[in-house]
Structures are given as structure tokens and as C-alpha cells.
């Protein structure tokens, strides 16, 4: 009743340089254990299409719990094995603090905006 089920969409970066190698996963709702299947499905779709950089957009997320963080950690682990890079953007200040606590940014850097995250991913390409 009180949960905001997670809605997950995948898109390519807009513009002429759009490529399947860089994909954005937009998250909307609660990032918790119930969102696991949707996040993993989006990650798998991006991977199948050849994504090397996967950017998670937290702009429309206002609730994350440690079960949701565990889902993100498992994605980061899979991405490492597949030699992909995971980047996060528009994470609010409070959840940045929580991500810092669990040292997630060591493996998935956090950027203030989509523009910054895309620029960082392009610089690595």
C-alpha cells in the first residue's frame, strides 16, 4: 500500500552520438528488494545490446533502503565481471552519504547530473 513500486526505463544518450554502448537506466519509485527484478532486467537488456557504460538516474528516487543498495552492489559486481562501468547520477545528498558509508562510489562513481555522468563516460570510452 505504501510502497512506490519501482518503474525502470532504459534509453540511449540523446543526440547524434547515441550508441548502444552507453545506456541510461531511469529509476522512478522505491529502490528496495522488490525492485530487484526490474533493475536486473534493465541491466541485462542493456548488456545484451552491448552497453559498456551503464548510467543509473536517481532523479525520481526518494526512498532507498539497504536491500536496494544490495541490489545495486550485485549489479556493480556483475558489471565488473563483464568489464562494464556503472555510473550513478542525481543521487540526493542523504543517499550519497549512505552510498559513501557502504563505499559504493569506489566501484560506481556518483555525478551531479546526467551531463556530467555522460561526459565522464565519454572521456573513458
Amino acid at each position: 500500500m505504501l510502497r512506490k513500486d519501482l518503474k525502470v526505463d532504459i534509453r540511449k544518450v540523446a543526440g547524434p552520438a547515441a550508441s548502444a554502448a552507453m545506456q541510461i537506466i531511469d529509476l522512478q519509485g522505491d529502490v528496495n528488494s522488490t525492485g530487484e527484478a526490474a533493475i536486473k532486467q534493465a541491466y541485462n537488456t542493456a548488456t545484451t545490446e552491448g552497453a559498456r557504460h551503464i548510467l543509473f538516474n536517481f532523479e525520481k528516487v526518494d526512498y532507498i533502503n539497504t536491500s536496494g543498495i544490495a541490489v545495486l552492489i550485485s549489479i556493480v559486481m556483475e558489471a565488473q565481471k563483464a568489464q562494464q562501468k556503472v555510473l550513478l547520477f542525481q543521487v540526493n545528498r542523504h543517499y550519497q552519504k549512505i552510498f559513501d558509508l557502504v563505499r559504493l562510489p569506489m566501484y560506481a562513481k556518483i555525478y551531479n547530473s546526467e551531463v556530467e555522468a555522460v561526459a565522464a563516460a565519454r572521456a573513458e570510452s
Partner: protein
Amino acid sequence: MDYRKTVELKIPNEAGYEKIAMKLAASVAEGMGFAPERVEDLKTAVSEACLNAMQHGNQDDVTARLFVILTIEASSLAIDVKDEGRGGRPPETIESPDMEKKLAGLQKPRGLGLFVIQHLVDEAMFVAPDVGEGNQFRMVIRLEPHKEQSC
């Protein structure tokens, strides 16, 4: 003068209802004058404590009882989360997870809740239940007069 006042809440043992406890704790903490950043920390701590109680203490049984008790004092707020203790005795100490191992895939990614709580509040520990049996987890935050505006 005795400032102690208590507010008690009983919530269904079902994920999602922890948000009611979060909102209640936030409302009380705001009223006491805690800074917005500390209220956010408290919300996450309360959420994690409730989810921990639902999953471990009450073994995800939707019929189990879960209580959240807020104790308001002049310069501190204590939040006790009480479950039925069906998952056995709680840990005596809160161990720090090995994040490098988790992130390297050598340890399960879950089991972060108590670790996170410990970093968000001034005190966090399992205590002997005030009434009856079960597990009782207590979190305390204290007003810092230099940083916070007292009401």
C-alpha cells in the same frame, strides 16, 4: 521537571509500513528541533530497524506484531523497535560488514542495515525488552545545541 513523553505505534509486519514509522519519527524529531540532515538520517535508521525486525525478528510473518516506541526527553529522542524475536537472539555486537569483500563478490551483498544505522544515530543497540519477550532495538539521537535550533 520531567520532560519524558512516549508515543507508541503498532504497524503491520509488512514491508512498506516502515514508512509510517519513518514519518512519525521525522515529525517528532522536527518538532524537537533536530536539523533536517539529522532527521533524514533518523528516517533511514528507523526504516532499516523496522525492516530488520520484520525480516529477522518476525521472520516475514504478516501476523507478527511490531511496535515502534518513541521516547521524547528534553535533549534526546529514543526510538525502540520491538519484534517477537522469532529469529532467535539478536547479535550482541553490531559487526561492520567487509565492504571490499561484498563489492568483490566474496560476500553476500545483503546485511548492511545495522551497520548503516550505527553510523546515523548517536546510539544503537539491542536492549532487554521493557515488557514481555522478543527483541528490542534502541536508537538514540541527541540534540546538539550548537548545531540545532531548539524549539
